């Protein structure tokens, strides 16, 4: 799993004056599950379309298995794209839609039949094989589009928001299926998703795009625990931010209180900065960390596994989110209006330039 399979070198794409992709360098490894995250309009679809061969990069090159495919036609690339709009063939049945790609490979009829039947089983739509796309629900259509791309077992599979229309349970099942299929057939996946949780769960590596540029790329843990910018920290998971100013080896908050962090040179002395801490790093057990913060509970939400508190504090106009495990919440019953103090460790504080 260490061999580079796909290389993007300085890929750019302009649509007239719009710069959709702004010089991306990226190496995707053999059999990797790679997730692209980014706000709407950040260039995710454009990037996938260049990999599939539907847009020519304005500059840069794409290499797949050592072969330059920058200008190769879509039907000559061992790459398949599942379209964000599904793009199913409306005049064909579900089974015909899925079989189409295999027929293009001129496979024997019997093999096509059995592979279509197998994949229909996986997406749980065997009973709708003879329906036309118009007679399916949005989620069913999405699964057909997924199956149509998957059944080809390409070297590289590009999925543009493949599970967005599915309910939570089905989405979980499909996530597991995707992982299983990936291992079974050794397909490399690049998946675009708006759902950061999905990216964290499924991906070997995540890249965050902002305005067509690669903001950060790394393992889910890396991205979650060590975001390199305020944008990345905000984009993945929930993060509490508060304005601070650096003062030597520590930070000063709005109310004059000290905030401790593992400071490097990212923020110059006496300059404004933003400190950040994840809700699950805040503890009721104040003794556990160097930092502490007192506030009033303004809202509580029970989530089964955890209890989420909103604290009004002098540190920032936004309320601070605290996530308590069920155990911690039981040990210390709370109600709205209570004044509590939470603490966290210096190493859990992230600091970004303001």
């Amino acid at each position, binding site marked *: 799993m260490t061999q580079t399979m796909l290389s993007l070198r300085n890929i750019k794409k302009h649509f007239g004056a719009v710069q959709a992709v702004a010089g991306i360098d990226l190496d995707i490894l053999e059999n990797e599950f790679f997730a692209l995250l980014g706000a709407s309009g950040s260039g995710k679809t454009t990037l996938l379309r260049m990999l599939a061969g539907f847009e020519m990069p304005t500059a840069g090159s794409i290499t797949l298995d050592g072969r330059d495919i920058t200008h190769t036609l879509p039907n000559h690339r061992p790459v398949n794209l599942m379209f964000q709009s599904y793009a199913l063939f409306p005049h064909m049945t579900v089974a015909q839609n899925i079989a189409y790609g295999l027929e*293009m490979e001129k496979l024997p009829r019997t093999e096509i039949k059995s592979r279509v039947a197998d994949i229909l089983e996986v997406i749980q739509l065997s009973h709708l094989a003879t329906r036309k796309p118009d007679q399916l629900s949005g989620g069913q259509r999405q699964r057909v589009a997924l199956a149509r791309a998957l059944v080809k077992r390409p070297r590289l599979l590009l999925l543009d928001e493949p599970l967005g229309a599915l309910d939570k349970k089905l989405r979980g099942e499909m996530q597991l299926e995707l992982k299983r299929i990936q291992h079974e057939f050794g397909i490399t996946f690049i998946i675009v998703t708006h759902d950061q949780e999905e990216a964290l769960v499924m991906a070997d590596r995540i890249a965050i795009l902002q305005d067509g540029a690669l903001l950060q790329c790394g393992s889910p843990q890396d991205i979650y625990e060590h975001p390199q910018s305020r944008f990345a920290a905000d984009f993945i998971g929930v993060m509490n931010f508060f304005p601070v100013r650096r003062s030597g080896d520590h930070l000063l908050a709005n109310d004059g209180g000290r905030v401790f962090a593992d400071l490097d040179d990212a923020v110059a002395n006496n300059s404004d900065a933003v400190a950040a801490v994840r809700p699950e790093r805040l503890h009721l057990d104040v003794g556990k960390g160097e930092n502490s913060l007192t506030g009033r509970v303004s809202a509580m939400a029970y989530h089964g596994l955890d209890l989420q508190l909103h604290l009004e504090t002098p540190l920032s106009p936004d309320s601070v989110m605290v996530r308590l495990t069920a155990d911690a919440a039981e040990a210390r019953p709370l109600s709205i209006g209570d004044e509590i103090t939470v603490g966290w460790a210096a190493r859990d504080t992230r600091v970004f330039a303001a």
Partner: protein
Amino acid sequence: MTDRKSLYLMTPALAWLTGLMVIPCLLILVLAFFRRGIYGGIEYTFTLENIWLVFDPLYAGIFVKSATIAGTSALIAVIVGYAAAYAIAAAPSRRQPMLLFFAVLPFWSNYLVRTYAWIVLLNREGLIASVVHSLGYDGELPRLLYTESAVVVGLVYNYLPFVILACYAPLSRLNPEVIEASRDLGGSGWTTFRRVTLPMTAPGIATGFVFVFVLSIGNFVTPALLGGGQFQMIGNLVYAQFLTANDWPFGAALSMFLIAIMMGLLTLQTFATERASGARKEES
């Protein structure tokens, strides 16, 4: 909308159709079963003679010939019109209305003028002949005007705008990503056209074909002008029965068959289009 409301809204159209379409058709139908008077006119005794006469090899032959000419015209018009519609739909979207406008432009001029224009072109001393001769060719040109081909050319020319519009509608509605999906799954350009574009736009082709066929098979102006006096299509035959031969009952019988053929084709086409779009409607 309630049934009653839609009835009110449909009343003027229904009245119009009944008065000017259904009643005359019924009159024609009835007329076909009467005898021709000795000096023209109608003798009101029942007979099937006129109906049998339609199947006389002489007249059946004219039916077949008319159908062949109409079919050839429809086929050529569909091929040429589909290609044009495809090109228009592929043009940048802000230029498409203008291209469509030009495609339909001839349609706004008088039918006779347009047909006469072809006489000017195809004439022995016409434009085409003079151009060929001015290029240095001295020999005899094959006859262009007053031929079957001239009739086909005239019909295709006249009805082409219909076909372009009929084919443009589904072509412009094609989702480009569906075409891309076919390429993505390994289909070449030609395979994609044959298996995706063509079937998805087939209703437009069917509409265009039936339109040209139905309008051509009953046409009598174009065959009269471009086919010359001796050339007969069903339309000319009907025209002659009513206006020169004074055999109204036989003219009526011929008309009935013509109408039956047209109705049959239009019904078929409606069913085909409905079946193609039926799935979509079922859901909504």
